[in-house]
């Protein structure tokens, strides 16, 4: 097709309006590297083979289901987990009554990593960021009074996936619900844990075997159950842009297909039960186009395996609005952000949605914030009238062209991964992780420069904000769980439990279905930790190796006086004291979110700091040993899941006890402002909440060090 007949005229007119600037100046380079033009025409649709297709038919760009929301709107599914099973149960019952249509369970970090609540490594983690589950007894309390044959349950579990899924099966069984009646989803997406969230237990190979054992067991016994939710959400939250999110998620999916086929299944046995989970950020049209492009690419990917059932090639997805886009500052703005993101997910054609609560940047939602979050979706569904048309943006020159661009760019990366031998191999090379971290560092630099605007953070800041209401996790949760564990262990048939655990070890070693073996053990009241240990004997516990990028932050930021000024100060510090400012960045507890800590590490190194990085999952003792041995000036402890109130003061105590009290300690991450006083009293000298810019935090750190070490 030729250029639009009036395009020349349009450009002339634009040039006039721009008063001499070239029209190209209006082009916007998206974080994905896609150039977005100021206007699109029919010419931009040339060569796109999916335009003017229909929903419910290949390539499914316009939606996985024919009628889409015109018949059924998406499922409102709010992810939640409070510290104990009892509290979570009460919350689920309330939210089902208030319009939630499915449950989504968040587990605490100890459970994720396969530790019982009484394990010494998890003192700071029990009941944090989700519910603590140690055995079937906790599961039964969690789902008490909730009919599991009718309510679909989504469980975010990847590491300790076997004991948790088995616990759910047994809890349902004891409610009188048969396995074939169970409907819902278990995340079971272990590959992305190695990429971003780090809540794995075993190395990649045995982890993949667990995934294929679950797929095999469920395809036989639980036909209505989604055995895996292939998640891009965490990849995006770790800093990936839309193209990276799409490519890595679908490549993960392809790897699972290969694993299941290698396990002896045929593609149509399981592919219809694969589901996806995408993260939706603030780049409105890009998010919509991403979901459309993902459906196209998945259809293409699965088709390579020659399925007979067309359902095998359909991408169905849950979405969640971005947690990263939430800010601690001026938090009511988050409602507006979440609304836009929710609308993007709907216009992109999601099957279910979680909307974040306005205070989720710093803490678990309160009843108030959870209600607003839920109502955000209900208002879109029931007030805005957007549900009357399938894919309402289909045919928009811009949306279709953008969809095409994401298909092209993500397709390239998927080809690259194929060339490496698939996602598991690619992960071994470290390629995906480095790309994500690079993307994260670039984004941080754009935010810090104000190129990407975040209202209330780098523009239109509010002075003297009052701290909001915060949900506090009582520190007694761990004690309660420990008491329950003792009780269960005293009442069960220990010999039978021991035998069932030995059987798990045997199956892990010699073959057989691990989920089947685990269901037997959980029935007998084996604990999550015991089951995990039984497999660890054979599989070992995985230790991630960190590769770090450098130079990306400063190169994205470019030559600026801010960066140069900070570099000059670190150089002065070297000249005056004989070495560069040296900082240990560490993560204590079982929280595996490492974006913040890696972005800080790479950016601070670019500013001329010597940065030590600790392994993940440290105890305060271990972090103190490392700080002392490396003789750092300052320790930055990153915390995203409420461990800060126990772990950080403990670290300070350990440092003081070993004579290294002069090492300063700062804390960063998701820390509610109401905890600041507590931390300052414990000896923390600086706290950096979400949204703190790198130059600001570096300035504060340097000021602290200059005051302490430079001659006045």
């Amino acid at each position, binding site marked *: 097709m030729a250029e639009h007949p009036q395009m020349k005229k349009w450009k002339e007119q634009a040039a006039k309006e721009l008063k001499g600037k070239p029209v190209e100046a209006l082009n916007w380079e998206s974080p994905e590297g896609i150039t977005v033009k100021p206007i699109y025409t029919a010419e931009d649709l040339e060569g796109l083979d999916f335009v003017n297709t229909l929903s419910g038919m290949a390539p499914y760009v316009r939606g996985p289901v024919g009628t889409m929301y015109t018949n059924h709107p998406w499922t409102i599914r709010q992810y939640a987990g409070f510290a104990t099973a009892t509290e979570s149960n009460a919350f689920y019952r309330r939210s089902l009554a208030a319009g939630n249509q499915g449950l989504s369970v968040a587990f605490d970090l100890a459970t994720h990593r396969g530790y019982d609540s009484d394990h010494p490594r998890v003192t700071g983690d029990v009941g944090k960021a989700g519910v603590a589950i140690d055995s079937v007894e906790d599961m039964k309390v969690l789902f008490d009074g909730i009919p599991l044959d009718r309510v679909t349950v989504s469980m975010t579990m990847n590491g300790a996936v076997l004991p948790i899924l088995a616990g759910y099966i047994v809890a349902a069984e004891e409610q009188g619900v048969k396995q074939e009646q169970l409907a819902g989803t278990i995340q079971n997406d272990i590959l992305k844990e190695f990429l971003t969230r780090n809540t794995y237990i075993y190395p990649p190979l045995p982890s993949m075997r667990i995934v294929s054992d679950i797929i095999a067991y469920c395809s036989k016994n639980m036909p209505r159950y989604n055995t895996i939710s292939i998640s891009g959400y965490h990849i995006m939250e770790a800093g990936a842009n839309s193209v990276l999110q799409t490519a890595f998620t679908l490549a993960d999916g392809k790897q699972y297909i290969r694993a299941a086929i290698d396990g002896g299944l045929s593609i149509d046995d399981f592919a219809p039960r694969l589901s996806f989970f995408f993260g939706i950020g603030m780049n409105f049209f890009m998010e919509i186009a991403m979901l459309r492009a993902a459906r196209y690419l998945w259809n293409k990917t699965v088709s390579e395996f020659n399925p007979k059932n067309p359902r095998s090639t359909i991408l169905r997805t849950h979405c969640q609005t971005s947690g990263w886009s939430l800010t601690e500052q001026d938090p009511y703005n988050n409602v507006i952000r979440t609304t836009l993101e929710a609308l993007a997910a709907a216009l992109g054609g999601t099957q279910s949605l979680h909307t974040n609560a306005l205070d989720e940047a710093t803490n678990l939602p309160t009843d108030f914030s959870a209600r607003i979050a839920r109502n955000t979706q209900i208002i879109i569904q029931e007030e805005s009238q957007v549900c009357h048309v399938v894919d309402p943006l289909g045919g928009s020159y811009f949306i279709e062209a953008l969809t095409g661009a994401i298909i092209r760019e993500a397709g390239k990366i998927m080809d690259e991964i194929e060339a490496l031998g698939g996602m598991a191999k690619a992960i071994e090379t470290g390629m995906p992780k480095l790309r994500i971290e690079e993307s994260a560092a670039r984004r941080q630099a754009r935010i810090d420069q104000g190129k990407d605007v975040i209202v209330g953070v780098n523009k239109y800041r509010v002075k003297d904000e009052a701290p909001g209401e915060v949900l506090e996790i009582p520190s007694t949760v761990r004690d309660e769980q420990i008491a329950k564990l003792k009780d269960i262990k005293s009442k069960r048939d220990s010999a039978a439990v021991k035998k069932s655990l030995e059987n798990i070890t045997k199956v892990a070693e010699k073959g057989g279905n691990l989920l089947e073996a685990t269901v037997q053990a959980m029935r007998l009241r084996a604990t999550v930790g015991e089951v995990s240990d039984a497999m660890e004997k054979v599989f070992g516990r995985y*230790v991630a190796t960190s590769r770090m990028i450098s130079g990306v932050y400063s190169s994205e930021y470019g030559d600026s006086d801010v960066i140069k000024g900070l570099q000059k100060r*670190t150089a002065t510090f070297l000249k005056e004291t004989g070495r560069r400012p040296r900082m240990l960045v560490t993560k204590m507890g079982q929280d595996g979110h490492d974006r913040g800590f890696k972005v800080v590490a790479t950016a601070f190194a*670019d500013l*001329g700091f010597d940065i030590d990085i*600790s392994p993940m999952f440290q105890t305060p003792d271990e972090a103190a040993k490392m700080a002392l*041995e490396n003789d750092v000036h300052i320790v930055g402890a990153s915390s995203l899941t409420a461990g800060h109130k126990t772990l950080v003061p403990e670290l300070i105590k350990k440092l003081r006890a070993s004579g290294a009290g002069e090492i300063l300690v700062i804390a960063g991450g998701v820390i509610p402002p109401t905890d600041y006083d507590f931390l300052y009293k414990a000896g923390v000298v600086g706290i950096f909440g979400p949204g703190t810019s790198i130059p600001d935090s570096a300035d504060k750190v340097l000021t602290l060090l200059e005051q302490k070490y430079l001659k006045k």
Partner: protein
Amino acid sequence: MTQKELDYYVQGVTSQNRLVMAKTITLIESTLPAHQETARAVMDALLPHTGKAVRLGITGVPGAGKSTFIESFGMMLTQKGLRVAVLAVDPSSPRTGGSILADKTRMEKLSVNEQAFIRPSPSSGTLGGVARKTRETMMICEAAGYDVIMVETVGVGQSEVAVASMVDFFLVLMIAGAGDELQGIKKGVLELADAITVNKADGDNIDRAKMARQQYSTAMHLLSPPSPDWSTPVMMCSSLTGTGLAEIWDMVLKHRKIMEEKGELERKRHEQSRLWMWALVKEGMEEWFYKNAQVVNLLPLIEKEVVGGRITATSGAARILSFLQNYSLTTT
């Protein structure tokens, strides 16, 4: 420097105080002249306490699994009751001066082991460069009673020569590749090797590892061994499963026994000290040269002449050197 200050460092190190060890290393790494003066006194005082450890240099191409090897090998040694120190040098950015020291993320178990001391250091930030820091850090660890000291180095550049010239035993890690094994690592590095081990010999990689070992064995015959009493063995190990690690340690001990019996160990260390002194002299001369006010003025002028094509590089160099000849060392 006061006697009290000297005592703090010397007594702290020799009484195996981890905190003081760490501070002593910081002291010798410091660029401040005052710190360097103290450091010299401390090192002189520590000298009688040094020399007893097994000094191991470990190198290999990126991806050969050096850190993982050190983690597993180190853990094995601590289980034998030995105390292990690991020194790792990470590159500093030449542009920003900063560095990322991530070695401990790859040595998760060893880094929290009470029997182990791991100290990563940035490559720049001291005048003496990699070699001086590492050598003196090694001596500090020896004085603190560590039995085995491992120095890790990236296997592609100049640093191997420096590391090989400060250790008793230089181990080169290799992995099985696609027939291009010898290309990734410099031949010169293999000539420094007291042993080569093919790492990652586990799972379905064993056959390829065996083949690689065979190829290296053949290749090593073409190179001259580092000592007349020792021919460089090529071994196989897996840091993952632990196979072959005990054999490597036995071999290190065997090497030490032979070298001690033949008096080679002592000779080697003396020779290392001698070369070390000259390396320091050379470094000191360079430093002195570039800091000299007249040189600082003279250099750009001569450089300009050479770059402008008005004089040749040779006569430019001659002019600079003739300046040095006429320059009295006593004037500053």
